[in-house]
């Protein structure tokens, strides 16, 4: 809501700077989104009378004028041709500051001095009209400040009105609110007019859709002067409030809406055939609107029609038919209350939001109707020469009356946490328009119908709190102490994220939705359909991810494109899988999703909530290591992404995991593995398949991994194992085996021996080449032995023999050099 301050002052007096006003409103009522300036913010604008006017001698498009400013004559260079000797014009003098911050100076334009500027409507903040200089009528006295007639500058507050306060969508409501904040009074314009126009009841009024239209009023105004313009000050206010001036009748309609917050509509009465009908649109009915578009309507939408055709999409926008025009001399004023939700849905479905729909969709107070109706009528009489009908037509079958809400002071004190004085609470509520009766410890509050948001005690407590001042609320902490903390899983995720960061990976967060290419490029299109967004921002963001991989790969592509030299990313996030509810349960599922209720299927059969959700979320951790993950240093060579780099990370995250070759369409078949914990799949690790890398536009395949968080143990609970203080003996054993023999199997076999002395075993070298036969490899193992007491050579050798025998039996391993 745009609030021009000069307009606001018509209803309420206040002596605050703009900053103070903004603070008062934002600390006690609504957020102020912005402060805008219009016209001349500081300086002097006077009524000048043009004495001479003619072309500039040195410029084709400039003119030069001599202007009488009331006793002194100045020369002014102008760009517009419309002034003439004798015309009254607004002249802004050098030194003045315009709304955009520019300061006007004396200037020489093509050799001629210019001592000021004659102003257009736009420069004065009256309209967007910049076609010529504003010409003032004879009532403006030469030499007088223009501000004596209308404000030459305007400050407009942009209020971000909360949706529960439709009363603040009008100037009067804002004035009432400000008066309540400042504990002062406000004024509502007096409605005084004479009637004598043609009667309204020559037209019919039939409300067919009462459920969507609680109130509908009509009043006729005849004998209007056609084609008139609204007074300058009214046009200026409408413009400052953000609307356009059209003609006197439309401007008065809009002015009243801005003033009262109550939309209205004005029909050209001569075009209304028979009478007004308020009904639902018919199937297939269409209407060509004022904005030139033709809209198809449906029976959910409320329209205002005459006996023959639709005239207005109720509360939203009018059609061209029966619209007020330059020839209109007689009107029907509609002021009505519509069901807010219906207006909201119609406006949303048509994608049509207007000043009127924005107000109507909040659901307005039907008791606002008479004032707005007669305000339009009286302004039409005053400014357009109209004659007001003596009668009105009104359909208001169920009048809304004010209501009473009790307020317990001790309840207010409990919620607000501050002492509340009964009298002060009463005064504050009265300033909002309530009537308050005081009983012991309790107030009985009668709420005016325009405050439909004040239904409950707690609503009143909020009003008292904000008007008394939230700065009075002290800072305290709740007294109770409860056990809290992170769950083991939450702690684990923390540790895991820190561990990965310490291992050199950067934590990324990517979008969980993407294009179907994500799936097809990974070769995952054979599985079942992923969950999809019904209304994605674009097709590129429709499918929910079933793996973290594509988002991370897209990030890797981006980093490569911007020349980041390799790098490692990880993400902790959820992946989504669709499990549509089983056949026959769909209705139950939808009912559950919309109401939270689980319908029983039989006396004891209750479907579980998870299956009714139909989408399963699994938290995972994924990583991508691309290119150079550690650059060369002067004393260390670079580390490039590869299978074992990724595997090393996985080993830190899932201690005790086993790695089993297993094909995945997007991974290198020879450089990837399933990660298993026991027999259960925990995830996968590998180098990206070169073809997949190409599809993603990566210059070389990165190493990637993904694990289910449930299987990660980044910091397993330690379990102490006793040890003896005897030296550990280390022995190496190099064996030659067939190339295909997995080293991991060899270690596992050794471990399975269950040697009581063996405390460690690792592979420290693998060699294939000239020193061993073709098709074979040498695997060098290092064992550590420790016993209860210092081990003898014999004991160690015996153990080593046992190991090599077992390796020979299991893998035909020949001990090298033996």
């Amino acid at each position, binding site marked *: 809501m745009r609030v021009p301050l000069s307009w606001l002052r018509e209803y309420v007096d206040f002596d605050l700077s703009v900053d103070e006003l903004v603070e008062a409103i934002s600390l006690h009522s609504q957020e102020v989104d912005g402060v805008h300036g219009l016209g001349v913010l500081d300086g002097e604008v006077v009524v000048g009378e043009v004495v001479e006017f003619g072309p500039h001698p040195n410029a084709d498009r400039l003119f030069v004028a001599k202007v009488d400013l009331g006793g002194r004559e100045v020369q002014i260079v102008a760009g517009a041709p419309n002034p003439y000797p004798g015309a009254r014009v607004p002249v802004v003098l050098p030194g003045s500051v315009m709304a955009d911050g520019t300061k006007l100076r004396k200037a020489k334009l093509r050799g001629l001095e210019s001592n000021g500027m004659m102003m257009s409507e736009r420069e004065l903040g009256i309209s967007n009209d910049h076609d010529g200089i504003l010409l003032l009528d004879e009532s403006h006295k030469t030499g007088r400040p223009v501000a004596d007639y209308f404000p030459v500058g305007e400050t407009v507050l942009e209020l971000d009105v909360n949706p*529960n306060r439709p009363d603040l969508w009008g100037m009067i409501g804002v004035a009432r609110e400000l008066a309540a904040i400042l504990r002062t009074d406000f004024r509502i314009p007096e409605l005084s007019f004479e009637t004598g126009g043609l009667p309204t009841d020559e037209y019919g009024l039939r409300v067919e859709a009462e459920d969507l239209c609680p109130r509908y009023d009509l009043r006729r105004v005849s004998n209007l002067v056609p084609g008139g313009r609204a007074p300058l000050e009214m046009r200026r206010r409408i413009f400052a409030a953000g609307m356009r001036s059209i003609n006197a009748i439309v401007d008065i309609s809009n002015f009243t809406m801005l003033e009262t917050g109550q939309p209205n509509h004005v029909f050209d009465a001569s075009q209304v055939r028979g009478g007004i009908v308020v009904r639902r649109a018919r199937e297939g009915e269409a209407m060509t609107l004022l904005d030139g578009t033709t809209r198809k309507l449906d029976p959910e939408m409320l329209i205002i029609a005459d006996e023959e055709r639709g005239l207005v999409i109720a509360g939203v926008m009018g059609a061209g038919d029966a619209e007020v025009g330059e020839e209109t001399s007689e009107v029907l004023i509609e002021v009505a209350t519509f069901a807010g939700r219906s207006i909201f849905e119609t406006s949303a479905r048509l994608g049509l939001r207007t000043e009127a729909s924005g107000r109507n969709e909040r659901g307005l107070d039907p008791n606002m109707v008479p004032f707005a109706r007669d305000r339009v009528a009286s302004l039409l009489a005053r400014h357009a020469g109209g004659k007001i009908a003596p009668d009105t037509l009104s359909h208001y079958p169920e009048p809304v009356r004010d209501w009473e809400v009790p307020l317990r002071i001790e309840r207010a004190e*409990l919620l607000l946490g*501050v002492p509340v004085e009964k009298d002060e609470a009463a005064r504050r509520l009265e300033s909002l328009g309530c009537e308050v009766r005081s009983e012991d410890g309790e107030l009985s509050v009668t709420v005016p119908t325009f405050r439909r948001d004040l239904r409950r005690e707690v609503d009143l407590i909020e009003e008292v709190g*904000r008007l008394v001042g*939230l700065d009075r*609320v002290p800072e305290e902490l709740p007294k109770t102490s409860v056990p809290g903390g992170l769950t083991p899983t939450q702690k684990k995720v923390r540790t895991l994220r820190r561990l990965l960061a*310490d291992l050199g990976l950067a934590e990324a967060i990517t979008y*969980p939705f993407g294009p179907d290419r994500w799936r097809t490029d990974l070769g995952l299109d054979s599985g079942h359909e992923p969950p999809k967004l019904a209304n994605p921002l674009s097709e590129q963001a429709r499918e929910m991810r079933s793996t973290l991989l594509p988002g991370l790969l897209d990030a890797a592509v981006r980093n490569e494109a911007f020349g980041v030299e390799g790098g490692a990313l990880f993400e902790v996030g959820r992946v989504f899988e669709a499990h549509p509810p089983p056949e026959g349960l769909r209705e139950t599922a939808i009912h*559950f999703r919309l109401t939270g209720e689980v319908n029983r299927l039989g006396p004891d059969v209750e479907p579980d909530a998870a299956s009714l959700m139909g989408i399963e979320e699994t938290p995972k951790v994924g990583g991508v290591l691309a290119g150079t993950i550690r650059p060369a240093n002067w004393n260390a060579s670079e580390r490039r992404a590869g299978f074992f780099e990724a595997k090393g990370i996985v080993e830190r995250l899932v201690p005790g995991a086993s790695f089993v070759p297993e094909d995945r369409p997007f991974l290198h078949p020879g450089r990837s593995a399933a990660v298993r914990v026991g027999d259960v799949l925990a995830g996968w690790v590998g180098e990206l398949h070169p073809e997949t890398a190409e599809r993603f536009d990566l210059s070389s395949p990165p190493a990637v991994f993904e694990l289910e968080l449930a299987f990660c143990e980044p910091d397993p609970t330690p379990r102490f194992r006793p040890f003896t203080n005897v030296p550990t003996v280390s022995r190496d054993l190099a064996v030659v085996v067939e190339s295909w023999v997995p080293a991991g199997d060899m270690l596992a076999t050794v471990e399975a021996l269950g040697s009581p002395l063996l405390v460690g075993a690792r592979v420290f070298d693998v060699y294939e080449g000239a020193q061993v036969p073709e098709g074979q490899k040498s695997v060098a193992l290092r064992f550590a032995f420790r016993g209860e007491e210092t081990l003898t050579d014999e004991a160690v050798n015996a153990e080593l023999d046992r190991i090599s025998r077992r390796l020979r039996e299991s893998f035909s391993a020949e001990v090298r050099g033996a």
Partner: protein
Amino acid sequence: MARLAREAARLANTSKFAEQVRQAAEAGRHVDVSKFAEQARQAAEAGRHVDQTQVVAEASRLAEQAQTAVKAANSLAELERLRVEYLGRSSQLTELRRLVRELPVEARPQVGGAANKAAQNMEGAFETRWAELTVAEREERLRSEAVDVTLPGVPYPKGSLHPSMRVVDEVVDFFVGLGYRVAEGPEVETDYLNFTALNIPPGHPARTMQDTFFLDEGLVLRTQTSPIQIRTMLSQEPPVYIVSPGKTYRRDSDPTHTPMFHQIEGLAVDRGITLAHLKGTLAAMARHVFGEDVKVRLRPSYFQFTEPSVELDVSCFVCGGADPKCKVCKGAGWLEMLGAGMVDPTVLSEVGYDPEEFTGFAFGMGPDRMAMVKYGISDLRLFFEGDLRFLRQF
């Protein structure tokens, strides 16, 4: 005495010893020992005593000579050679000490004492010089081992944590310290829990205020983390003290809005919870995240599931409200931090709590925006692009 005389005679008659004496004399080296031997021999023959004073003088002369040589030594190797020469098995001093046994008993203490003293002096000199030379040699070695300390160290990998998650962790830690639990919930949420249970029935205009992503009928990507509050309250009795961070989604995309963003919500429901508790709790949180000096203020606001509703501003932690040109608060002196309020009685009733018995406060904040303010980031879209030039800064 008889034994001594016999030995002296043996010495005197030993042509080998005489030869040694002769050679030493020719070489101009110390002849004193043989001289003493001679004296001893003569003395023995004459039944007289060796001139003890002379022996003592010779011993101290030897010690002096050794000390001079040691002081002049310039390396540990040379020093070792001198040690052998002056203190070794075949050194003069050793000879002299052997001689002591040949002396009359009454002469031995004096001569032996002198020899020992000479040996001690020499050893002292050696030790001192050894220490000096060791230090000097170590210093020399260290000098030669010097490296260019401006060369970079071994590059241990350095990763980073996402800026939003840094803020999330900080906020969560604060509330955990107050005894809150961390509650989580699904990102795909039911229409009921995301809206209706939060006092936003179908057709309510607030539903458009948060443009929602829809999935299968009745399912949405949660537009707020508030459904977690409902889930928590449905699953337990008060008191409830939870904080719930998570991803949320709205159909919005521009420099200050991304279709995914983070929220942290909190909820405290107990007997006697007041707006003052809300203010105190959030003020303490703001000071935890933005520094001890920040102040907070409440402004009235509107949320469907709280009444009264407030917004919390934090005084600008950069300029403190003093700089009209401050880039962080844009001169306002205050930063909008979060929305909050007292839990609406309708919401409490919906989950089966008695609003007359229990009251509560709830709040919600945007850790992405808090990170933007805290770290001076201007474009929210950067948060979700996985760009290492961005991520590595945190």
